[in-house]
């Protein structure tokens, strides 16, 4: 299953500057593991204690995977997986 994964600026140091990479897998976690095998260090930035980081958003096509099974969300051939860091903060 080949999917295109869009990489945000801050994580491109892990992909040799590439804005997007091809990967395979049947779930979001498998896709992340597949990228990690070639671009070590990326997974640590996305996953913590087997869960997606609170302030990282991952989308399969237009859907935020947080509402679709998290790391177990399914991906299909030809899907686009987009990784975007949250834009957030606070005065405390």
């Amino acid at each position, binding site marked *: 299953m080949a999917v295109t994964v869009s990489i*945000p*600026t*801050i994580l491109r140091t892990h992909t040799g500057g590439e804005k997007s990479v091809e990967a395979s897998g049947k779930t979001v976690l498998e896709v992340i593991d597949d990228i990690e095998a070639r671009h070590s260090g990326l997974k640590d930035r996305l996953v913590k204690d087997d869960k997606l980081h609170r*302030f990282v*958003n991952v*989308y399969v096509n*237009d859907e*935020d995977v*947080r509402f679709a099974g998290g790391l177990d969300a399914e991906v299909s051939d030809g899907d686009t997986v*987009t990784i*975007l*860091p*949250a*834009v*957030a*903060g*606070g*005065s*405390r």
Partner: protein
Amino acid sequence: MFVVLRIRRDLVDAIVEHARRDHPDEACGVIAGPDDGTDRPERFIPMLNAARSPTFYEFDSGDLLKLYREMDANDEIPVVIYHSHTATEAYPSRTDVKLAQEPFAHYVLVSTRDPEEYEFRSYRIVDGAVTEEPVEVVESYMFANTGSDDVPDAR
């Protein structure tokens, strides 16, 4: 890396207006600019604070995806990411620093704690390090900085 934020006055006014409007909740948004190395904020995009909180802000995740797709399609980057502090100074909090994930953006903070005077300050936040930078407000990007002073500008 640019060590100054050059920004048009109308964009400063738009940010301050947005911050005043959402006070006492924190307001947030982006000014996008061309991805051509000019570091020029141009397109004002106020965002909804999904947290609707006086002490926290977060772009809605659906809006975030839409925003980045739009910028991608336009060859734009988030030149400025702004938010307001409504009861404290315009300086990045520990949370702001921890969550900052755009190393090339100017992080603008506006404080609306004083109803008359606002504070408008800009920072780089990279790997947990905060560097304040001067803000140069210009009327237009066109006529400022036309070249080095020892070369006469073309007429």
